[in-house]
């Protein structure tokens, strides 16, 4: 049994935060999502929803129907003996990406700074299967792990005001896709023609935590056909 040291904090008058001590890692991510899936079994009084992050889980409660001491005690007991269940084989989701400066305004500059060719960048960016750690920040935004360090680059000092939906970007050690138009400080290296979030769908986001994402390079012509 793997032990993950944790502490429980009162985050606000309607929420608790379970904080894990270790650095973010795959085992911890699995533990966190397995724990979240198990929360309904606990019948925590007033519990409404939870949010996963790299090292913590937020639990939100109805303040009018909440006894935080009881919730903390229940959660402590549960987490001390909790064993994550085996996950079903995770899905791998392929996302077509056009790496072309006509749709990715920072591509040329990025390659110059990193001193690599566009071809090399594509090879390095499309090789890994990225793990979905969690969703957040924007609707349907996937926090992905697994970026090759050779193509990491600190965020821009001054964020762009408008990054178009579908932009594939690198910021620090992370890579991701902007699901909706948004301001942002990451370097835009590509664009996907597919939609990542539809509020009206039963499953609004394209992927769930622990799924894998693979980027498939497509040409500019293929991108245009996709858009049509």
């Amino acid at each position, binding site marked *: 049994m793997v032990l993950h040291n944790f502490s429980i904090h009162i985050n606000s008058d309607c929420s608790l935060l379970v904080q894990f001590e270790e650095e973010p890692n795959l085992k911890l991510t699995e533990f966190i999502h397995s724990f979240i899936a198990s929360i309904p079994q606990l019948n925590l009084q007033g519990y409404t929803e939870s949010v996963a992050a790299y090292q*913590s889980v937020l639990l939100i409660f109805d303040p009018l129907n909440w006894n935080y001491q009881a919730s903390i005690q229940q959660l402590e007991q549960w987490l001390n003996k909790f064993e994550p269940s085996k996950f079903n084989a995770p899905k791998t989701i392929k996302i077509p990406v056009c790496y072309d400066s006509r749709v990715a305004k920072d591509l040329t500059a990025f390659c110059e700074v990193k001193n690599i060719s566009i071809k090399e960048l594509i090879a390095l960016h499309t090789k890994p299967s990225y793990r979905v750690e969690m969703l957040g920040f924007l609707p349907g935004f996937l926090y992905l792990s697994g970026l090759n360090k050779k193509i990491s680059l600190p965020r821009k000092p001054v964020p762009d005001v408008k990054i178009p939906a579908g932009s594939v970007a690198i910021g620090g050690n992370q890579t991701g896709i902007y699901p909706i138009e948004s301001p942002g400080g990451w370097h835009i290296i590509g664009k996907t023609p597919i939609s990542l979030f539809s509020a009206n769908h039963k499953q609004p986001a394209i992927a769930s935590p622990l799924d894998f994402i693979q980027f498939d390079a497509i040409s500019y012509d293929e991108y245009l056909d996709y858009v049509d």
Partner: protein
Amino acid sequence: MSIKILRPGLQTSIQDLGRSGFRHLGVSQAGAIDSYHLKLANWLVSKPLHSACIESYLIGPTIEFQSSMTIAITGAQFEMLLNAMPISNNRSYKVRPGDRLEFGKLISGARAYIAFSEKLSYQAVMSSYSSDTTSGIAATQTPTLKADDIIQTLDSIDEIPVRTLAKELVIPNQKNIVVRITKGLEYSRLTKKSKQILFESTFKVDANSNRMGLRLNGDHLELKEKHEMVSSPIVLGTIQLPKSGQPIIALNEGQTIGGYPRIVQVIGTDLHLLGQAAPNSKISFYPVSIDKAIFLHQCKTKLLKI
């Protein structure tokens, strides 16, 4: 059967109490920033308190009613005309097809709520009619209403009484807003001096504030030592401290996950006050315990069971 927007005003949108249960997808709750006044407006038109209203910010709209209904306005105080006759907040009025409601000068507060007795005829999106002006999630075609937009409503045949709000429920809009706070998860990382500043000085609301967050300007706040945060959850009312040293209060369209230290947390009972914080108004903080915060929540809810 419908309400026509003649002039949209600023950030005019449909809001209810927002959506819950979707934060794990990155979807924040949206909804009325001043939920207290949304509830009061709905009470005045005899609707369930969580119903959708029109929310407007700093500049009110001009609206034409295209059917008979009862309306009420709460929250920010504006000079207002109904068919060229002055009307006031906190009571309901009957309107007929062709009647025109015109907002003029803002007198106090920041956000007005316009309740109408007819039901909206839209599909809720993610269990709410709220418009998220940041992400675009909305029941209406666009999250903010534009000139000539028509809000479709359903006929109601019920006779709606005209109501006036009890005096003890009226909260006057203040230029100096005091909100109560509890300690945030990274509170202990603040320097002693910063903690003092936080509780003893006032902060000015920046003009760049919006439904995502209230940006504050004041004496520089800092941490004892540099602290690189791993992206972590934030909730409505979390006050984060970015590198600029000027705090930001997360509002209804705030991110679900953020990367700045969470220094303090506005208590649930006082969140609605932030909805009336216009640019340049002043905010100060008063610390309370978690137990007190939860107790206050229960008191306020009892008060609203009108």
